[in-house]
């Protein structure tokens, strides 16, 4: 995308500079050049590039969508000013503040909601962001490639404590995940 954008930028600026340097003996008040400038460059060129780009983007987006899989794990995330509480339907009653525990290598659905204002759940290395809205539950599919910690943050301005409204995701190997569900956070 970046390379394509740069190519377009260079093309447009090159045409612009050429147009500036060009010194026709007489200014041309006619409408010649409509075919090249308007039909080709103005209309056909963006239509083809944009169509390709949109299709590509939608395919990418489809791949990121939650699909049903047998080893799916569901967790809940509830935001408030300025903290996150995570719940685990697999271990009723278990809740953690500020740290989301998930198994590594398995798809995880995070059910995101808010208790007060609009927040947004964002773990840059695991997925894009999704808003936490009061009264609504949004589901985000994430998958941690390996055990470890991933930092996350709120990504919708939510008042005075916004800058410090962060959390971490702790991804466990299978054994540690089972232990977590049974015994809670270590």
């Amino acid at each position, binding site marked *: 995308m970046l390379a394509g954008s740069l190519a377009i930028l260079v093309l447009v600026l090159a045409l612009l500079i050429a147009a500036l340097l060009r010194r026709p003996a007489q200014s041309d008040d006619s409408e010649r050049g409509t075919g090249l400038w308007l039909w080709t460059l103005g*209309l056909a060129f963006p239509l083809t590039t944009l169509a390709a780009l949109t299709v590509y983007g939608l395919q990418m987006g489809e791949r990121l969508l939650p699909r049903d899989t047998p080893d799916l794990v569901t967790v809940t995330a509830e935001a408030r000013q300025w903290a996150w509480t995570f719940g685990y339907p697999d271990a009723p009653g278990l809740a953690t503040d500020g740290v989301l525990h998930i198994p590594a290598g398995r798809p995880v659905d995070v059910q995101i909601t808010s208790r007060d204002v609009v927040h947004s759940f964002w773990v840059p290395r695991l997925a894009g962001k999704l808003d936490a809205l009061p009264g609504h539950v949004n589901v985000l599919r994430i998958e941690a490639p390996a055990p470890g910690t991933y930092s996350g943050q709120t990504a919708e301005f939510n008042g005075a404590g916004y800058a410090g409204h962060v959390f971490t995701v702790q991804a466990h190997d299978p054994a540690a995940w089972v232990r977590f569900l049974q015994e809670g956070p270590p």
Partner: protein
Amino acid sequence: MTQKPPRRGTALRLHRQLERIWSPDPRFRGWLTTNNNNDVGRLFLAVATLFFVIGGLLAMLIRAQLATPGSAFMGPEAYNQVFTMHGTVMMFLFAIPFFEALAVLLLPGMLGTRDLAFPRLGVYGLWVYIFGGSAVIVAMLMGLSPDGGWFMYPPLSSAAFSPGIGADVWLLGITSIEVSAIATAVEIVVTVLRYRAAGMSLSRMPIFAWYILVVAVMILTAFPPMILGSLLLETERALGWPFFQVENGGDPLLWQHLFWLFGHPEVYIIFLPAAGMIATILPVMARTTLLGYGWVVAAAVSLAVLSFGLWVHHMFTTGIPHLGLAFFSAASTLVAVPTSIMIFSWIGTLWKGRVQMKLPMLWLLGFFATFVIGGLTGVMLAIVPFNWQVHDTHFVVAHLHYVLIGGYVFPMIAAVYYFQPLLTGRFHYFRLGAVAFWLVVPAFHITFLAVHVVGLLGQRRRTWTYDEGQGWELLNLIASTASFVMAIGFALVILDIGITTFSGLRGKRNPWGATTLEWAAPMPSPAYGFASIPIVRGRYPLTDDPDLPQRIARGEGYLADTSRNRREALIVTTTTGKPLQVAVMPGNSALPILLAVVTSTSFLAPLVQAYWLSALALVGVVIVALVWVWTTAPRQSEGLVDAGHGARLPVAAESPDPPGWWGSLFLLVADGVHFGSLMFGYAFLWTVAPNWPPPSYLVPTLLPVLLALGGAAALAAGPRLAARAVATGHRTALALVLSLFGALSLATAAASVMLARQDPAGHAYDAALWLLAGHVGFHAALAVIMLGYLALRRISGHGLRVGEARIVSLWADFTAATGLVALAAAWLPGTFA
């Protein structure tokens, strides 16, 4: 060509007579009573520039804070106010008023007329803007600014999470400024459609007129959802009506829809006037004509239409289904097509011409280099997975500054330099302008390239500080340093323009060799604009007829006769530009500023809980408005008048479609969109919000339904019968009484809804019912006032005019139609539940 000997005597005599008729009061109070577009536009421009400086200072505070990690310069409370105000001031107090100011100044000249269609409405808009904007700034200086971000998402902006008056300052101040923008938009639309030079058909209009027409229509259709959103949020904050509170049937997402329904078109409302300036200036700088005039007009129109289909792209992360996202993603990328047509039309224009590298052209090159990058990052943002990552980071901040500064501020600076000789009669002689350019543009790119990168590295927008060790320190320091250089550059631009305005060289007419009518006026443009209304035969009147300025000055166009001793302009047919009516323009008056004072008081008094004052001021609004209309309406009929060139035309006030009728029509477009937004909100809450359906429904009884049906029918029929009676010389009393009966019945039906559901704070359903009923009641009251005015005219013996009755008929039809829809929406669910 046979050149007549110059008849200086005629031109000078005409000039003196017109000066006397058109000039404002020379004393200081003239500034408060003038309604000439030259004065209004200049004040508008000066005030908008002042707000640009304030917004710029706020930006400097932001960059000072972010220059280093862990900065102790501001705490989060102060920082949140500063960034909220920076966005608010730049978007609402600078960007929109600034192009409106240029349109007010230049449009009459471009169209070949003498003033805008509703000069007093323009003054009113100006003062409402000045009062509302000042209130917002005063609140900021008192530390009472809003601090929830310039898009004010509830529940953060609701009373529970934003106590204090900060959010109210935003809602009331900004709404009053939107009222002013709508007033100006109505004025612009009617001017472009009706007030032009003789022979200026739509296809001969200067390109800027097309752009500004599209923009004005967009203002009329995009601002009402925002005004509704502000109304909902303010009633929730002040009265507890739960539109956005989930527990009682509200939904915070409703705000986001209403806000972006306005917010995205807003971006194009800001860009298109700048594009219109580019399309005007660029061909002149290249000594040729615009390539593909029709293409560019079509591109502007389609950009406007498309921009209303993309609001959801600001909400890609709110959990909207992927299919919906696909639609809006495609629409968002599609918007690049008309933009690309414009860009290549301009490059093609430069290609066929010989470019002169004057100062306006330099700024236009700055536009190209910047805007193309902003457009490309915009396309990236339209791609959903990418958006999910960079949404709400500094990448978005950088993108929008590329588009807004590159796409709006640079072309506007070009426009100010280009039109300065016309507006001030003085020429630029100094090298300072070029120095400023070479400070601003490179520093801009350094600043916001760094901001792009830091956004990609994950820095969130609106965080008041950040920690060391994330790789952001150097980039932020670079951005802050360069931004200060840019600020110095902008200060030099303002200084340069100021110096030229007061001490530049005097010069001859049309210094750039432009082809459009505004350059046919003397320099600086006098209050009356043209000594006679020009006759044009093509799209480039000054090329077609280089002698045109002298002929206009000698009074060889229309309306050169000053013997009627009043301000007159020509109204033409909308498509072909054939002379149709003679408009009589109002003279200097203190009424507009008085109306602005009472309007602003009624808007701003609730900030200090002075609701009684607000109500009192509202009564004042009605009284001043009635005096205004009463004193403007002519007393006697004069039949056909001599317009010159053998044309005998009716006076506009005696025509069936006077300017007031056209103005009402477009005001009702805005009103209709407002009503449509209200219906959308009601349906949205019903289908999407949690905690619906409501615990109980309103079940209608027979009497109110009959009252509504009968009232609507009477209200639609009455003013029609009155108009017909006036036209045929019959008595109007019965028709007026019938209309009055209709309005009162409809209002009674609306009141029955409120009486049946007495607790609007209980559930969003009830709150929505009250708003629907309120809409009906408000418009019925308006109809009663208008009918009262007609009755008063009749009783006092001034006689009614068909045009006046038809204006009332327009409002009555709207009231009857939306009244029935609103009441049906209130009653039907309960009937079938």
